[in-house]
């Protein structure tokens, strides 16, 4: 009966080596596996994008045949959305940092968390193996009927794609249950609602959206599988709208599922690198939740040329425009945080500024297309392609890289090379805009999306050539990131808190021990580490 209690008992069950990863229920290891998986799919889907751009570089090129082209853009979109952006943000950063930021030792249900990961990986492998062995879907990531019905997609590739997405839905729904319970129940003492970090607020809102939206898509996918294989009669020729409704009921919220965590990330990074508190924290929290709620009321704006009742269309035009208001609130809050701050122009902040600059263009072109007359003009044109790459790449992917540079030192214990990081940022910023800005003009000039090639003389040659050049600059910038990540092995040691952060993850070691914290911290404001620094006498 020793009277001295050892503060950190070593975890006997913690295993190392391969088994330690396969059998882990630790949220940090699961998070790292999500990140590794997602980044691999990012590379794969990025290479597909390069093939797509090569094909379109000049008129009447035949780099790949039209069928392969259809399969390529289908898998590019599906993988980027379902296998990269969502699992990276929610599964990767969400898993790794939500428990750390709320001062918990793990998520609420660690085993369920591991299950979510393995089913997600399984789904990804199902889709990837199908793709590699030629069982490929070619009905685009939207899988609109009738393209996706047995008559138009007779091969098993479509079924494999559907099964993959169903499995992914199960994984992310269970993950959402886990996040919601974790954020509700596992917060450190003192962490009242207004002291929850912005990233955690964003993740909780995202989890709520996943929970409500995904099951509807799952229902639609199962119905389509049954239509294709068991002769049911759901999506017959006169009911193509039903698929569109059920698909966009999930997939429009999915847009916010992909952007809200990225917004949460930059809401964490900008205050740290401006040496100021986040301007209007409560306004940012409230607008996050409002975006989450309004996200469920806008899906018909994808269907303005589908023959929906005009009165209903006008309602959805209104809600689509309204959702720009909370988004604008956040935009101004970020700018006001930067305003007058002593800015520390490290790579994470550059990535955030990249986010602000590009996302606002995507946001504005989104409001433009929310107007029914404009949408009817640019629908299914390259203008749409430009728009959603500005929000999903310019928003989510810049957010993801911001997070990798910001939190990478916490995950690995090593600092990234700043010079390579800055080179990566500038090449990515330039390459991104060269790739996607010309697509606005291509769309307005009438170039439809998803075409495998085009005839000369329509005025599309120059824009496409520029876009292709930009795509390779973009790819090169990602290569620089990979080199930087490999060099991380020899990077400077990061220490616990290299950025003088505000949130609890910086109070523990880098990388954090399996139990996260020596002692569960007590929180007294929305910037617990700032408080701690102020208390410590400076020498």
């Amino acid at each position, binding site marked *: 009966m020793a009277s001295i209690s050892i503060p950190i*008992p*070593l*975890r*006997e069950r913690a295993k190392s080596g391969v088994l330690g990863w396969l059998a882990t229920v630790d949220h940090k290891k699961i998070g790292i596996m999500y990140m590794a998986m997602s980044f691999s799919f990012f590379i794969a889907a990025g290479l597909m994008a390069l093939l797509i751009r090569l094909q379109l570089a000049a008129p009447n090129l035949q780099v790949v045949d039209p069928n392969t082209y259809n399969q390529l853009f289908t898998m590019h979109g599906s993988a980027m959305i379902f296998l990269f952006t969502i699992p990276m943000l929610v599964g990767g950063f969400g898993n790794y940092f939500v428990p750390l930021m709320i001062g918990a*030792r793990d998520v*609420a*249900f660690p085993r*369920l968390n591991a299950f979510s990961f393995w089913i997600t990986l399984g789904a990804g492998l199902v889709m990837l193996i199908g793709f590699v062995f030629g069982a490929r879907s070619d009905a685009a990531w939207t899988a609109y009927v009738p393209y996706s019905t047995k008559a138009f997609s007779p091969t098993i590739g479509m079924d494999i794609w559907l099964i993959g997405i169903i499995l992914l839905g199960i994984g992310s*729904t*269970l993950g*959402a*249950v*886990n996040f*919601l*319970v974790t954020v*509700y*129940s*596992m*917060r*450190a*003492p*003192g*962490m*009242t609602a207004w002291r929850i970090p912005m990233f955690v607020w964003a993740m909780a809102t995202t989890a709520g959206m996943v*929970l*409500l*939206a*995904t*099951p*509807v*898509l*799952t*229902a*639609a996918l*199962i*119905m389509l599988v*049954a239509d294709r294989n*068991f*002769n*049911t*009669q*759901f999506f*017959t020729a*006169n*009911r193509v*709208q*039903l698929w569109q*409704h*059920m698909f966009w*009921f999930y997939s429009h919220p999915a847009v916010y599922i992909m952007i809200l965590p990225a917004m949460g990330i930059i809401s964490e990074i900008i205050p740290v690198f401006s040496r100021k508190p986040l301007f209007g924290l409560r306004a940012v929290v409230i607008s996050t939740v409002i975006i989450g709620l309004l996200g469920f009321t806008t899906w018909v704006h994808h269907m303005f040329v589908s023959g929906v009742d005009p009165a209903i269309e006008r309602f959805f035009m209104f809600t689509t425009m309204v959702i720009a208001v909370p988004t604008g609130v956040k935009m101004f809050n970020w700018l006001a945080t930067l305003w007058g701050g002593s800015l520390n122009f490290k790579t994470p902040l550059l990535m955030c500024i990249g986010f602000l600059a590009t996302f606002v263009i995507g946001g504005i072109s989104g409001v433009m297309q929310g107007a029914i007359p404009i949408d009817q003009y640019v629908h299914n044109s390259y203008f749409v392609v430009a728009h959603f790459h500005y929000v999903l790449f310019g928003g989510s992917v810049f957010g993801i890289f911001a997070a990798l540079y910001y939190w990478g030192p916490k995950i690995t214990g090593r600092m990234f090379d700043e010079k390579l990081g800055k080179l990566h940022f500038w090449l990515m910023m330039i390459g991104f805009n060269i790739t996607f800005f010309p697509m606005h003009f291509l769309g307005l000039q009438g170039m439809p999306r998803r075409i495998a090639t085009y005839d000369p003389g329509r005025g599309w040659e120059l824009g496409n050539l520029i876009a292709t050049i930009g795509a390779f600059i973009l790819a090169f910038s990602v290569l620089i990131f990979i080199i930087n990540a490999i060099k991380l092995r020899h990077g400077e040691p990061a220490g616990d808190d290299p950025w003088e952060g505000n949130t609890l993850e910086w109070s523990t070691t880098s990388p954090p021990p399996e*139990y996260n914290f020596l*002692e*569960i911290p*007590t929180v007294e404001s929305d910037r617990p580490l700032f408080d701690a620094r102020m208390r410590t006498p400076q020498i």
Partner: protein
Amino acid sequence: MARATLRDRSMERARRSGDIAPARQKNIGLLGVGFFIVSESMFFLGLFLAWFFMRNTSDAWPPAGVAPPPVVPAVLNTVIALLSTIAVFFADRATARDDRNGLIKGIAVAGALGVIFMAVQAVEFTDLAILAQGSAYGSTFTFLLLFHVLRVFVGVILMGVVLVRTLLGHFSSKRRLLVQATAMYWYFITGVWLVVFAVLYLIG
């Protein structure tokens, strides 16, 4: 062991500081089941929306030449579902009082009623299999019944696990999460059945 120590310590601190209601950490499991049920509800909401969308875009519902399935087995099943829910309710209450016999009786009766429910549905499905392939009406009708009865199946399995673990002496008034979770899920399944019954058979 190590982990329990760490968790106990953090719980203790949480309680002392008073900022976190201890109740919030006590019901983590049930909260998870609750959120899961929300997602399950959305799945059925999707199917119901499909039903109403098709109903509103069809000239006749059910379409000409398609006979709606007989209502008698569905009425029978409604009674069975309600009775089993009462049995589950008493089983849950019995655990709270440490009444092991009450739990065994309640869960056995509810499970048996669940099996009867599935048997009645199985007879129905011999007709529905044909109906499903003929029309959108039949497809949606069959899907709603099929995915509901799948949940009944899961519920009956859960009751079987509860029964076995009760016989092994696993539950008490302090340790009854699985009993509560099973009860919650069964209430949800019954609730879905009532909506299915009302929409498919009464509104039509």
